[in-house]
């Protein structure tokens, strides 16, 4: 458990009757059942502690119907960490073996195939790099970590980032055999498997001598910067860890790349929850979009620290895909309200979910891109 017993009790006592963060809980807004609200879940945990309720599948169903995207904590004046409270409760369910089949599938997929999607035949990174033009000659001080979501759902995205580095003439290195950072294991509550993944990965990374690590997936980035610390795994020393938009902005600032073609349409940015509220970076993607789009960047009503989640958090897509896709639809509606023609995000999982949700829209008046893709369009 990552909340101490004192923190857990304090959070439960604070949240069990409190209705104030209801608008921040996207799942609560969709399901509309009191047990699936922040106070409902906290009350359930209190009653479980008291022995008035049993840990069972009904409880598990409620605790996995939660987005864990940090917005409740951000919304709360007292900043109570409801998300960690629920994740710790999931850990308890894992220990008791009371979890739904979908949770077990996530765990076994990561352990067996190295990704939560169960994808057996990932395109080798080396092949993606070769197809993107190959490595850049020189002594690399930069390690690229792509994460499994990009490799499974959008390997071309990986190739696009390689093309940017080739245009910038930045030598890089990579891991032939990338393993999962453990993010999805942590989110379902399997802390011991997550820690195991973290240890193995950290060991592999420690054997690579570089100054910088650029992480394409904000979930991996968040894991490295925050959750790994809980296991005393500090990847930041001696390397410096960048998320991909932070690194791309650095390339612009230092003149390695230039915006040769400006975006002509209005652009709106969706903050992935990890960068909105955990390993915070609101501005580097916006700086990039301003650089390549002039004044065409607009904002959704809820942005930055208050950005709504697209359903990618809390393993919700794996346990309750309908709810996750519905949340992604809401983001597209929010984006459309700005009259933007391009919805940009900085997360391969967000991009995947938004594109999947967009399949149900009849009016195709907005396109969904990753910051890497739109940057590449501009600098080519």
């Amino acid at each position, binding site marked *: 458990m990552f909340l101490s017993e004192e923190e857990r009790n304090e959070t439960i006592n604070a949240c069990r009757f409190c209705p104030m963060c209801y608008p921040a809980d996207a799942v609560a807004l969709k399901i509309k059942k009191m047990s699936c609200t922040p106070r409902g879940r906290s*009350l*359930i945990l209190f*009653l479980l502690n008291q022995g008035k*309720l049993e840990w069972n599948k009904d409880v598990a169903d409620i605790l996995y119907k939660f987005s864990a995207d940090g917005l409740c904590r951000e919304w709360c004046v*007292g900043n109570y960490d409801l998300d960690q409270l629920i994740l710790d409760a999931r850990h308890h369910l894992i220990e008791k073996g009371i979890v739904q089949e979908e949770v077990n599938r996530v765990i076994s997929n990561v352990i067996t195939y190295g990704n939560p999607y169960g994808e057996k035949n990932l395109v080798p990174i080396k092949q993606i790099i070769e197809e993107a033009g190959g490595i850049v000659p020189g002594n690399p001080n930069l390690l690229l970590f792509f994460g499994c979501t990009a490799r499974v759902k959008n390997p071309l995205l990986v190739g696009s980032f390689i093309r940017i580095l080739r245009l910038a003439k930045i030598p890089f290195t990579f891991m032939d055999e990338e393993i999962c950072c453990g993010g999805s294991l942590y989110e379902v509550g399997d802390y011991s498997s997550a820690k195991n993944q973290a240890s193995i990965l950290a060991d592999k990374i420690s054997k690579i001598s570089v100054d910088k690590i650029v992480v394409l997936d904000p979930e991996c980035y968040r894991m490295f910067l925050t959750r790994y610390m809980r296991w005393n795994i500090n990847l930041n020393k001696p390397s410096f860890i960048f998320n991909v938009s932070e690194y791309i902005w650095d390339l612009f600032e230092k003149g390695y790349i230039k915006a040769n073609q400006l975006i002509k349409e209005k652009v709106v940015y969706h903050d992935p929850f990890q960068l909105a509220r955990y390993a915070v970076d609101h501005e580097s993607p916006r700086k990039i979009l301003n650089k390549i789009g002039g004044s065409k960047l607009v904002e959704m009503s809820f942005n930055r620290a208050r950005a709504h989640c697209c359903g990618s958090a809390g393993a919700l897509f794996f346990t309750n895909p309908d709810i996750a896709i519905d949340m992604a639809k809401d983001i597209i509606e929010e984006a459309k309200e700005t009259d933007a023609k391009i919805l940009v995000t900085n997360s391969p999982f967000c991009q995947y979910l938004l594109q999947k949700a967009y399949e149900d829209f009849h009016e195709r008046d907005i396109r969904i891109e990753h910051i890497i893709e739109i940057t590449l369009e501009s600098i080519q």
Partner: protein
Amino acid sequence: MDKRSVVYDVILADLADIVGIENCTIKEVDRLCYSVDQFWLPKMWVDRGVKLPEPDFIVFPNSADEISKIIRVANRYKISVIPYGGGTGAQGGTIPLFGGIVIDLKRMDRIIRIDKNSYTVTALPGINGEFLENQLNKEGLTLAHYPASQYCATLGGYVAARGSGVLSTKYGKAEDMVINMEVVLPTGEVIRTLPVPNHATGPGILQLFVGSEGVLGIITELTMRIDPIPEVRKFQGYLFDDLKKGLEAGRRIMTHRLKPCVIRVYDGPSTQRFIKRVLNLDVTGIFMIVGVDGEENQAIYEESTIKKICLSLNAKELGPEPGKHWWKHRYDFYFPPFTPSLPYMYGTTDTVTTFDNIYKLYLAKKRVIEEGYKEWGASYTAHFSHWFPWGVMIYDRFFVKRPPQDPREAIVIHNKIWADSARASIANGGVLNDHHGIGFKLGSLMAEQYGSAWPLLKGLKDMIDPNGIMNPGKLGF
């Protein structure tokens, strides 16, 4: 109801037939979550491990027609029906005292129409307050109803409890905003009130259902007055050395027929306890916020007239920052760790009266709590926050630091404080409650308040709800 009984299964089947099995639940984990609201008693029961009264069924209908059918089932089997919005009432209004069917209205959450000529919005009762306000704001409009529960309460709940928001002084309480409603009666008929609230066509049935807290029927559609988002909204803070002066300033503002959007006057202990802690303003005395909004010229005129009134009563000007800060953080008071919480015993004993009574009413209630419950470490705070052309409400609270641990003893003390406080209100020209409602917290005092008029209300309830199924145990019925 005995869940092993065949009647239970038959009722469940009937309900599933109406709303779909996916919109019914009987799971224990769900039923427990519908057994508490914001009333202190159920919270205390939870905390002390006392078994809560739970509903038998929870259903999520999507139309007045479905609700009508559910109510007919309830009548057939003589089982209670409890309408449920956001569950944010502080009076136990949604506690299923005798089990029954909780009808959770949150699936009925659509805006039907925004009329930009008449400045009205028609919406379904389960729409979330914050969501409704956001949607209106996109059109340059506002409901201007900002209760502490806005984030989680529903439109139907606003009206069913006669709720009030922080800008009610100008924009009115929820009861003042409602234009017309559709209601499902306790016998299942669906009726509509007249299309407009002001008329000369006999007694108005609209106000019969406003504030009825689910005991006379279920509101299934509402049309509310809305307003344009004001051009400006400005605040000023003042500090008085005496509560009477603060109250007099408010009275003069209102009787001059100025239209401030907000006046808030905090007594000494409130200023000390809350203003410093929550707003981080270190002031001693009687803190006052005044807000004006609307077209700029109008706001400037009102602000300067209000300033003259306050300065004539020796107020110290604190500038606009305290008011702006309060507006930005107005809901902070209701988040933990600032909101009152266990292990304290606490309650908001708000009432409303005319200007000539307010100060003596305040003193009487303060005395009742602080002297009457000294042995329990009771304290009392008050602010005056919703003003009328004829009077003002007092938002007062009691806190008991050392309540009894035994639940039964706690209830006795709790109910006695409430009864003593309520009787002090009634004895000094006030009423049982201003804007939180009655629920089952104050139900036992309704006959006392209404006196010889109570049989009229009771008769009406008996007539409209012959089987007594609608939210029993509430509003004194």
